[in-house]
């Protein structure tokens, strides 16, 4: 396949992979803090920063754009947190207001720039809609640098971030400054989002942050494993998404990556052990069955207590019904009980509880004493 040997594809795939890894790892913290949509707000808010940087420096130098975007992103988070802290406005409303008014400001500035003669704004458009296919080697280095910085920060402040995410009050009481940790997390998120803007664009960036983390959350209850898994999911989706988009004609990279991510999330939601929907359904089914078995066993037990010498009872007596359908069900359950050794079959359709069965009931707290007999 020429896809793998194509130089541009290699560059883009590498960049998307790096972005996926760093956004995924960081997203774990953001998602656990229940601030998943912060990425969306930051990516929208970055626009006026980019425009202002463009107006101030005029150059097409993307590094300056990045600087403006980071500043605007940080400002937006700061405003959101201030509003939430000092008023009854909730987090989601604050996000929505800041997001829309910052983006509106961005539009205003963009239309203003358009009127400036000789201004080349090609570089700016790229930030809004994202254009992975034109990625340069230099941008990959930038993404690499951002990724390395983020990973180092995560490792350095692992304990603090973990405390802050799960129990900020406890962190406070231990003497950690939650304000500083919160700022650190915000700054890292802004960095990751801004780095990704050029690749996947404003709107899809929030998925890069949220989806890998939600997917990874299903597989484990340990933060370290979750962060690693989220990084892997993000990286893999970046890689696979780029490869797919470059082998199909006219397929944009950003949406392809997001689709692959969504597939990862779907698989995790359904198939992850313990938390997955499939497993939950299976466990539910097993519970229903085991409760049914215990119920039948209890019937056998009480029947056995009614007589001095214990003898087998016919299936009609056990299920107390002459409905053929219910009888059939009981027969199946009784056969299973015989197989498990909890009951014994005396003759056709006649069953009796065994000592093992009695022990099983006692162990599960369904009957009080192992010794039976008339009281």
């Amino acid at each position: 396949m020429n896809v793998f040997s194509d130089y541009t594809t290699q560059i883009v795939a590498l960049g998307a992979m790096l972005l996926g890894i760093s956004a995924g790892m960081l997203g774990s913290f953001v998602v656990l803090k229940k601030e998943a949509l912060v990425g969306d707000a930051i990516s929208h808010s970055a626009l006026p920063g980019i425009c202002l940087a463009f107006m101030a420096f005029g150059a097409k130098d993307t590094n300056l754009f990045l600087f403006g975007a980071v500043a605007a992103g940080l400002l937006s988070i700061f405003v959101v947190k201030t509003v939430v802290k000092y008023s009854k406005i909730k987090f989601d409303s604050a996000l929505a207001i800041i997001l829309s008014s910052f983006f509106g400001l961005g539009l205003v500035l963009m239309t203003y720039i358009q009127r400036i003669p000789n201004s080349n704004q090609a570089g700016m458009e790229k930030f809004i809609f994202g254009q992975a296919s034109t990625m340069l080697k230099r941008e990959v280095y930038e993404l690499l640098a951002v990724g390395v910085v983020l990973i180092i920060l995560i490792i350095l402040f692992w304990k603090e971030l973990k405390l802050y995410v799960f129990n900020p009050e406890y962190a406070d009481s231990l003497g950690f400054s939650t304000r500083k940790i919160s700022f650190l997390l915000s700054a890292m998120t802004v960095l990751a989002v801004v780095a990704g803007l050029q690749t996947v664009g404003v709107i899809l960036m929030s998925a890069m942050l949220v989806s890998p983390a939600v997917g990874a959350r299903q597989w484990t209850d340990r933060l370290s494993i979750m962060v690693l898994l989220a990084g892997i999911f993000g990286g893999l989706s970046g890689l696979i998404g780029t490869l797919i988009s470059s082998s199909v004609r006219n397929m944009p990279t950003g949406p392809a990556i997001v689709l692959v991510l969504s597939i990862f999330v779907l698989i995790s939601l359904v198939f992850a052990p313990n938390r997955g929907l499939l497993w939950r359904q299976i466990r539910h089914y097993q519970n229903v069955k085991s409760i049914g078995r215990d119920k039948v066993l209890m019937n056998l037990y009480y029947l056995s207590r009614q007589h001095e010498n214990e003898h087998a009872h016919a299936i009609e007596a056990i299920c107390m019904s002459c409905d053929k359908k219910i009888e059939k069900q009981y027969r199946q359950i009784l056969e299973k009980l015989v197989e498990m050794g909890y009951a014994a079959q005396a003759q056709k359709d006649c069953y009796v509880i065994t000592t093992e069965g009695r022990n099983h009931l006692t162990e599960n707290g369904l009957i009080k004493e192992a010794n039976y007999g008339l009281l």
Partner: protein
Amino acid sequence: MVYFEIQLIAVVVVAACAIPGTFLILRQMSMMTDAISHTVLLGIVLAFFVTHDLGSPLLIAGAALMGLFTVYFTEVLNRTKQMSEDSAIGIVFPFLFSIAILLISMLAKNVHLDTRCVLLGELIFAPSQRLVVDGADLGPRALYTMGFILLLNIGFVVIFFKELKLTTFDENLAVALGFSPVIMHYALMSIVSITAVGAFEAVGSVLVIAFMIGPAATAYLLTKDIKKLLILSVLIGAANAIAGFWLAMWIDVSISGMMAVVTGLSFGLVFVFGKDNGLVAIARRRRQQAKEFADLTMLFHIFRHENSPRAEIENGIATISKHLNWKETKIEARAADLIGRGFLVKENKKLILTEAGQSFLALSRSKERAHGFHFRNLLRKIAFVPTHLTSLKKTVPRNVGKLSV
């Protein structure tokens, strides 16, 4: 005339948006507007593949349905209890949006479905599409669609006001009384979806979020009454729209963008300078309370030690500063203030209560009682001081100085 029409459309749109927006804020579902305003693109694209006509009303229907589907999809993910609601939104809308982008760029490359225009929108073009019946120009089409949606929203809120209020504020009570919060939820979200689609055709998706959430949130800072909230949010929204329009005309920039900016600014203004709950008001109130508390604390301290043998030492400024752990400058400032108000007099470095000061203290003590707040009881709880030590006797044992204030 065009100016007037644009403003009229904007005001109608903002009124139609602010009404469901109020309930979105109260239900903490603001970001749903963000999701819906993006995913409607997929609805439009899918409907286009069915009709192959960009002017078809089916596009609007498809978009509204997609909005509802977004809500449902989010709800399904949310109900698995495997993720929080905002994560569900954060997964659903980029997913649907990227499907839309993929479809457009792969299958409809030649069609003029401008994603930029859909997303950013421009109010200036809204009056150019006219409603023409029998050759007679009846005005801009957006005015009629949004006017209809506005009436729909008003009707919905008026008819289901009780149900909306109940399910918004107390879901459990609503269930107990036999109302279905689920039906109200989807009814409201249908309204939001239809409004978002209608509005974003006229003004673009960013402005939909600004119009829905901004005015309602600003009004929410100003009032607690839900009826006032609804009316106020419409008024604020209209003011934002008109101010935004003229500002945009003046600087010659994007009208939608400017309206969003003004919405944000008006929220910021109320947030900072609001009468009771603004940042400035909070800061001022806190300073005032700190001052009053300091005054009382100091007066009580002087009162306590007034006739004791150590009064000379205890009521000197340096000692008060040490015992209360305040800076001397603060003590001096408070003392000067209290002397000015006639509560204290200064006699060679010792502070003495005046008649006025004593009656002021007595008054504030009775006030504390009236409010059920007993300074002494509180002190006893905190410091485990025996009752006889905290009682305000004129002669106080010597060792109390450091324990009590």
